[in-house]
């Protein structure tokens, strides 16, 4: 089969771009622990506030007996609730979040937290915050005209605090 040399060169270039893109994703998945949400528990978003886990007085940071933390949150237009969470540094955190209305996202810089929050599902992720300070938790899925105002704060504090 005859392939024009110019065409061949472009095939290599395009093939290279595809291979590079996949390699970047594999690197981040394997080395940085960034995964798409794998937990597919379902929940009725319309009745979220009437459920046990996402009831209004159950949101926030809960401490487990082994010292790890469970964080329960809700994403709703246009905010994350609670609006501010405080977690100690170098402590395993399991985040569980559900949406009250439409598709939202959740991203915390300097961590592996980057989730889609799909209505009808509970999104779960495990992380450990390794940098002290205050970080924004931002919505990265367009959810409506208030989308760019949708964020919360994560305060990472010293361990003995």
């Amino acid at each position, binding site marked *: 089969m005859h392939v024009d040399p110019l065409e061949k060169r472009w095939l290599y270039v395009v093939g290279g771009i595809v291979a590079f893109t996949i390699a970047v994703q594999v690197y981040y998945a394997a080395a940085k622990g960034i995964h798409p949400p794998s937990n597919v528990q379902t929940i009725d978003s319309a009745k979220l506030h009437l459920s046990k886990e996402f009831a209004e007085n159950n949101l926030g940071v809960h401490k487990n007996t082994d010292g790890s933390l469970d964080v329960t949150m809700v994403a709703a237009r246009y905010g994350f609730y609670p609006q501010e969470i405080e977690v100690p540094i170098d402590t395993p955190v399991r985040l569980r979040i559900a949406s009250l209305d439409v598709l939202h996202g959740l991203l915390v810089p300097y961590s592996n937290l980057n989730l889609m929050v799909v209505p009808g599902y509970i999104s779960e992720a495990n992380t450990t915050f390794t940098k002290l300070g205050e970080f924004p938790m931002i919505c990265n899925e367009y959810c409506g005209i*208030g989308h760019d105002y949708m964020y919360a704060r994560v305060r990472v504090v010293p361990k003995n605090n």
Partner: protein
Amino acid sequence: MNRSITLVGVAALIAMSTSSFANEHGASKARADAPSTEVAWTPETLALIRSGNAQKGSQLANEQMCASCHGHAGIAQSNNWPSLAGQRAEYTYKMLQDYKNGSRNTYPLMTVLAKPMSDQDMADIAAFYASFKLPPVPVGTVIDKALADKAELLVMKGDGNRLLAPCMSCHGYKGEGNVVDVPAMAGQTPEYFIRTMQDYKTGKRSNDVYSRMRLMAHSLSDQEIIELANYYANLTQ
């Protein structure tokens, strides 16, 4: 003649509500762990509200004497009460349910009135008020344009530092409300607007799911609330 019947009725209702207030007050402590509202926007609830019959709602509103405070066409008689004309049916329905279930306790008379209503009655009344246009600038209200203009930045841009999303992102550019139960505020009486925001701020009113409005009101200064009240009263369609 008609007027005197109304007056007697209102006086009786106020007397009933005063006695019920004592009961509600005792129950409010037990409610601390209860959800902010029992209403959930399931397909069944939404279908029920869509099935609301405005004509039946008009009759019910007559029987319940809604007009004595909220006006014959849903435009409040006095600046102390909310106008309901053009309000989203979902919002009116939710408020009636919240009064009935005790999720909203801001005005005991409304609890007394909502108690005997069926879900269908509430859907009908909600449909009746939703059938009107949003109210014009409330009669007898002098809008302070300078104050209203000051609110525009908050309405359109919000304040990121205080985690305040712009008002219009939920309540609409023209204060017309939004799906599902975000209330319309255009033409609302300023006194009622201010009282509502103060009730959210102090937590006296707590039927907003996940404290969404309470958190907003808490971040607003008293002056900003007055500015917003002037802005929305003047936002005639």
